[in-house]
């Protein structure tokens, strides 16, 4: 029996944005076993939810994750509306799907960037995150927030998408589509990315079924499950789109599935915008009197896979029991299959390939003078300043040469 070296990644590691501990047991370069420790981020949300009213729970579950902050309210709304047997207006359905798909685009772009970062390919990281920005700006325009949009409530949505905003959304979408073409082309044809991701971190169909993995992780291994198709909710049955799958189950297949899914998302949003024009403005929610006794199983397809919420109501104004299962809960467990037998450098990208949920809530700030209240600098001025300084730096370097 050979000796094994323990290589810890985390709990506070520069590569991980959230605290978690991976223990890699290695023989030389090869990972022989992996253990995962969590709980550093446990906030007791299920218990907390029992002390909030149904309206408040939306804001609570939105804060489970900063990236897919919309998918938890989506699943929760589906669960509660199942208990109370509420039918939404078409306009609310379209708006919900638009928000859900915009989120998928920005989340997948974020993952592509992070994957590039994990591979040491920072150009991809810079590109993907740059192209993600306009999507967040869209969110700010629609909901007032770049993250944690607070758009959902029982029986509908909180804000309407006005007619005047539709051309602006369409224009940004066209732009995102062009950039996605660029990014997809660059990644699919890049020999470095092929060398680093093909045949790495393979999950077979049987692994997916055994671990109950969901979302792009499952679809990249040829298991075509997608809640939007299987158990349709919101406006997904009203529009045309297809489930993207790949067969090989390696990291490349997961990247491929995510990149191609973005096109489907763009197409869904475009169809929803068209549908929105036919509906009467302002009809975004229905009146809800009370939530009767009963249980509801709500699910929604988050960018990472199926989010599941189980709600038990005792007829009062807050849930008696609220169980939440995020997709990473089942996807992270597949590390035992995907990492063992890999080299340490490949293990990191295999870990990242399921897109474990990372929070991203940092945003551009505008600085104000505390005393006078004057704006010191806004985003554009900061960018201009940065460009100016880069040019100055270039000049000095040139003069020295």
């Amino acid at each position, binding site marked *: 029996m050979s000796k094994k070296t323990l290589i810890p990644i985390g709990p506070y590691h520069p590569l991980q944005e959230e605290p978690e501990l991976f223990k890699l047991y290695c023989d030389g370069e090869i990972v022989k076993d992996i253990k995962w*420790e*969590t*709980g550093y981020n*446990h906030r*007791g949300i*299920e*218990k907390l939810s029992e002390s909030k009213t149904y309206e408040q729970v939306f804001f609570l579950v939105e804060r489970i994750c900063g990236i897919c902050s919309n998918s938890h309210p989506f699943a929760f709304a589906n669960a509660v509306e*199942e208990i109370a047997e509420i039918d939404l207006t078409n306009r609310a359905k379209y708006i919900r799907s638009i928000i859900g798909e915009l989120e998928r685009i920005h989340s997948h772009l974020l993952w592509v960037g992070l994957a590039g970062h994990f591979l040491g390919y920072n150009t991809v990281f810079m590109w993907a995150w740059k192209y993600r920005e306009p999507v967040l700006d869209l969110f700010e325009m629609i909901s007032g927030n770049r993250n944690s949009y607070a758009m959902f409530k029982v029986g509908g949505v909180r804000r309407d998408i006005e007619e005047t905003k539709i051309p602006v959304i369409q224009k940004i979408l066209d732009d995102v589509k062009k950039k996605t073409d660029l990014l997809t082309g660059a990644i699919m044809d890049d020999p470095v990315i092929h060398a680093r991701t093909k045949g790495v971190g393979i999950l077979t169909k049987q692994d997916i*079924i*055994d*671990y*109950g993995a969901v979302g792009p992780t499952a679809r990249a291994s040829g298991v075509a*499950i997608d809640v939007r198709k*299987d*158990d*349709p909710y919101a406006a997904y049955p009203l529009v045309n789109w297809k489930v993207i799958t790949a067969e090989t189950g390696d990291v490349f297949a997961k990247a491929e599935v995510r990149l191609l899914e973005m096109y489907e998302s763009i197409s869904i949003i475009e169809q929803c915008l068209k549908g929105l024009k036919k509906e009467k403005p302002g009809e975004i929610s229905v009146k809800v009197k009370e939530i009767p006794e009963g*249980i509801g*199983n709500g*699910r929604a397809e988050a960018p990472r896979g*199926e989010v*599941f919420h*189980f709600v*038990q109501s005792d007829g009062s104004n807050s849930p008696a*029991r609220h*169980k939440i*299962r995020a997709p990473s*809960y*089942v996807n992270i*467990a597949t590390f*035992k299959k995907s990492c063992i037998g890999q080299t340490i450098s490949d293990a990191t990208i295999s870990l990242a390939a399921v897109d474990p949920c990372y929070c991203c809530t940092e945003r551009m700030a505008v600085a104000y003078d505390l005393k006078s209240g004057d704006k010191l600098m806004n985003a554009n001025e900061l960018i201009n300043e940065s460009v100016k300084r880069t040019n100055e730096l270039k000049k000095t370097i040139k003069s020295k040469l």
Partner: protein
Amino acid sequence: MDTELIIEKFKEKFKSDILDTVIKNQRRIIITINPDSILYVAGYLYRTEGFRFIIATALHTKKGFEIHYHFSKDDAGLILNIHVILDKDNPRIESLSNLFNASNWIEREMHELFGIDFLNHPNQEKLLSEGNWAEGVYPLRKEFK
């Protein structure tokens, strides 16, 4: 496959173990079974009918401890809740983790937060609070303040 057909076959096979059936609609069904038969029922759903284990929810109610095992039949869009009611004082049930890995973590979590024992679990360690939580204190039980 038709939801009704699946349920008919299920009822036929586990006639003596079914205590109650609630059919909310074609996509949501709750079947209460005898806890002793959980391993056979889960094995039948997973191996023969191709159900996917989503997650399990434990509840602490007046009846005692309850578990809803959520199974999904993806091509029918069906969520089947297999519901069991466990003993008030000594909640224990057979583990499903030897059948599929998907239930490994959630059973550890339920053991940790509710104090339900999962018999023959391969590794019933704490999942979330290893080393920083008192033994025998279960935060999701109703008496916990």
